[in-house]
């Protein structure tokens, strides 16, 4: 498995990385953890002229509390996200979903920013970022800008990151005390999601005060299940309300059909898994 030839750059700061990206032109590829890029290179499905490795930028590997946000550097590996106390305390849904990503080897190499920028609709973390209204900090030649999750995911493998730009940080609002669960369905333990449902609930006195629900692999981008959220708010967290809300799970979806799951089966799974995720989150 030999990739085609490429130039390799390892900048030590975001500014250097942005400059390297500008110099390399449009055939450049950013290397984060490499868990999707390296297989693509080795299968020669892509042949970039230059690889810009963000692994040398220490600033991108930090998790910090920033007021009412938890700011996670784009190069923080899944393993660190999953184990981080701040994340566990304030963004438990992200911690739970990250723990289901692939296997320990991948989680030690793969990064939060890499996974989100890659924007594979079968990836687990997009639905979480979308459901939780994460913000994406993007650096470019003219400085940094922040994009909300609802604008970040544009299409299949396409995000709001523009040419010459690099995702540097993902900022999650605090959901301290919220109940959450990530319900994932895949063929084998290490496989990507056929379908998955991310749920966070603020439960007040036994009834659901606020709900956030995101769907994985039910369209060309992660999908916010607004219909499910609306149906849950004000309800007691029980089997009947979960089941009723789950009926809205496929609203606004465009489920893909593939060998593991044709669209009708995927839609069925989305409903079943949504019901289960709500009940599991509510405990």
């Amino acid at each position, binding site marked *: 498995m030999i990739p085609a030839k490429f130039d390799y750059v390892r900048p030590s700061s975001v500014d250097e990385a942005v400059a390297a990206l500008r110099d390399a032109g449009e055939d450049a590829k950013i290397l984060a953890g490499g868990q999707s890029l390296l297989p693509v290179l080795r299968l020669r499905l*892509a042949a970039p002229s230059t690889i810009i490795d963000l692994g040398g930028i220490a600033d991108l590997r930090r998790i910090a509390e920033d007021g009412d946000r938890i700011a996670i550097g784009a190069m923080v590996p899944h393993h660190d996200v999953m184990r981080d106390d701040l994340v566990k305390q304030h963004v438990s849904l992200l911690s739970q979903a990250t723990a289901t990503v692939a296997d320990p080897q991948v989680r030690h190499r793969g990064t939060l920013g890499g996974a989100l920028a890659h924007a594979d609709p079968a990836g687990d973390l997009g639905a979480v970022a979308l459901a939780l209204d994460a913000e994406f900090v993007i650096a470019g030649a003219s400085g940094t800008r922040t994009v909300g999750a609802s604008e970040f995911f544009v299409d299949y493998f396409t995000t709001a990151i523009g040419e010459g730009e690099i995702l540097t940080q993902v900022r999650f609002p605090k959901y301290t005390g919220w109940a959450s669960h990530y319900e994932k369905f895949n063929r084998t333990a290490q496989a990507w999601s056929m379908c998955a449902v991310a749920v966070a609930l603020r439960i007040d006195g036994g009834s659901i005060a606020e709900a956030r629900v995101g769907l994985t692999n039910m369209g*060309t981008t992660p999908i916010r299940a607004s219909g499910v959220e609306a149906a849950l708010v004000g309800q007691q967290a029980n089997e009947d309300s979960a089941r009723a809300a789950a009926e809205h799970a496929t609203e606004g979806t465009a489920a*893909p*059909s*593939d060998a593991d*799951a044709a669209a009708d089966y995927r839609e069925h799974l989305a409903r079943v898994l949504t019901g289960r995720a709500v009940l599991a989150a509510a405990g």
Partner: protein
Amino acid sequence: MTTTAEPTTELGKARTRKEDARLITGRTRYTDAITPHGTLHLHVVRSPIAHATITSIDKSAAEAAPGVIGVFTAADLGVESVGLPCAWPITPDMKAPQRPLLATGTVHFAGEGVVVVVARTAAEARDAGDLVEIDYDALEPVLDMEAALAEGATLVHPDLGTNENATWAFDSGAAGTGGSVDEAIAAAEADPDSVVVRRRFRQQRLIPAFMEPRSCVVDPTGEQITVWAATQVPHILRTMTTVTLGVPEAKLRVIAPDVGGGFGGKIGVLPEEMLCVALAQRLNKPVKWTETRSESLLAAHHGRDQIQDLTITAKKDGTVTGLDVHLLADMGAYLGLVGPGVPILGAFMFNAIYKIPALKFTCTNVFTTKTLTDAYRGAGRPEATFGIERIMDELAVELGRDPMDLRKQNWITHEEFPFTTVVGLTYDSGNYEQATEQAMATFDYAGLRREQEERRARGDKVQLGIGISTFTEMCGLAPSRVLGSLAYGAGGWEAASIRMLATGKVEVVTGASAHGQGHETAFSQIVADQLGVPFEDVEILHGDTQISPKGLDTYGSRSLVVGGIAVVKAAEKVIAKAKKLAAHLLEASEDDIEFNAGQFTVRGTDKGKAIQELAFAAFMAHDYPEDMEPSLDSDAVYDPENFSFPHGTHLAAMEVDTETGRVTLRRYVCVDDIGNVVNPLIAEGQVHGGLAQGIAQALFEEANYDDQGTLVNGTFVDYTLPSAADLPSFESSTVSTPATSNPLGVKGVGEAGTIASTPAIVNGVIDALRHLGVTNVEMPTTSQRVWRAIQEAQGRSTQETPVDTHSPGAGLGSIDPNNPQGEVQ
């Protein structure tokens, strides 16, 4: 596995494998790690199209690329008339196309090599490969076996005039080994007290998926041409290289260094191996070819791929009266080394452990424009075991019987051994009652049946199914005369040599060729017992035709029961020589010399010599009898008198989530009777690995082709192999009814788990859903297939599933490696 007190003999001791330290830590050399000075590297440019005429080949850009030594077609190499061997002409009129080293004129499957690039580095060869321009005119692919046999079908090889490779039949009525199935079916149909059950099962196409990709290095610069190959069969490869290319056999040295798995997938003689030899000779430099994983999945031979039409007849009291088996077996585009015979091995196993009075087996092998099929762990026997064990469950349902009770009623009881079966095999030993009783007790069969009833009664969304497989198999391939009667192109013996070194250490040479099995440990244990020497003093040498000049290699669970017995026979000769020398030195009659635990003593005295002393005395040769040579070294060739018939009872508790279709293997209990066990740890490892592979067929694996004949899951991205995380801890144990056909009382174990487990899993899945109206789910029983089966059984129609569309796989997610620019559909 239950262990009792550590035995005093080596036989039965659960030693950890002495080869593992180097294998597990990588402190060893696989073929790809061998690079003689000046080695050139090969890259094969393969057809992306299943069936096409090659209209033009432009090599010029590749030839001009950096580091390229040459770019060759078959014509450039002068090998257009060379065909790869098929050693098993199953019928005298079998149709066998020439399988070329590189496609000439027409490509017959996607993945077939067309051009080979030779360059100074592997990277340069790979880069230049992208510059070779080949134009194709696509022809109609031939993908469906039944359509391929129909009148007017597109022919894979028009010169053969048919897509039928051969039809092989066995009829116990005609053979005189049993009754007539046609009569049994007619009688059952006419008899209100009998039933006839007909079922069609599919054996999906599988990919052997060994861990080490195939690789070959050829160095032509010495007096002999040295070939290193990641192969199961170095001896066969040497002979077949001579047959194929005409290189004198004595000018070839073939070495199988440490080989990382095979499962039958490394039993072939490869076009790439022959290209390496031809190019090394032409360029007079060492050359190397190592495939990528994608090449391996695409172009290395596949396994299984059968349609099975079965008819079983029985009296309403449960007595089976006949079994008619009709198979279609997909050969792919060409014949592999033993490919046509693989389904035929099943002919002798459909009757399994049962006293079936009449059996007919008809198999038609079919050419398609797919990758060729050949041996894959179990080779013919898993297919047969699946067929009979599935239809025994169907018969039980038809008769309203407990499936285990029905089996008991029909199986050969332990008092009836040796038992000659309806196909003429003689099972030497076995005790199905014992294995079954132990398995059912461990499993708590009755308790799980109760739980199943409770779950059904309360309409639990998770239903429980109990899957049974009471299997036997024939292994230890094979008595040479039997192979001769089946027109197999070789014998089934195995060779061994024992060299007693001057210092008392022992070198054992075996013709078996381990590729992960643990021969070095197991054979050392056997020799230590036979000669009475410490385990540590025994060295096992193998896998190099200059060290081990004679052998028939490793496949068909033959290493212990054929190769191991050859070692025993050689040891007996060493002892006979040593006894003679001892008698001479001790001034006693040979008849008075007793041998025990490495000591030769004069009966009734304390006079004696250790075997090491005798080895030294033979080496010194200062004093030895007139009528013997001064050597204890001995050779043996052992041709088995019979096959080996391991058996066992396997029970699976399957949970099926009826909402999602998810199938979960909750428990797996198996009790295997593999006779005497040389090393329980190795045997358990073989069973566990075999189970994982057999369960993977039932639940996970399938090689899919699209309507153009492209393999759509040709990477580990979406050819779904399970990992340890997908399987429970197996509860495996053994019982022992020693084989009577060999002096160690041992039976083969390498394929048992794979053969037994697949029907146990599928029977369990169906059993969980039977009350919902589900009667079959094709393999692999994925969640989607199960969900659809439930919907259909409940009268709800569902969507067609596109089998050829990439699913979010293990490595690449939604990126489709076959269509990287494409959108999800």
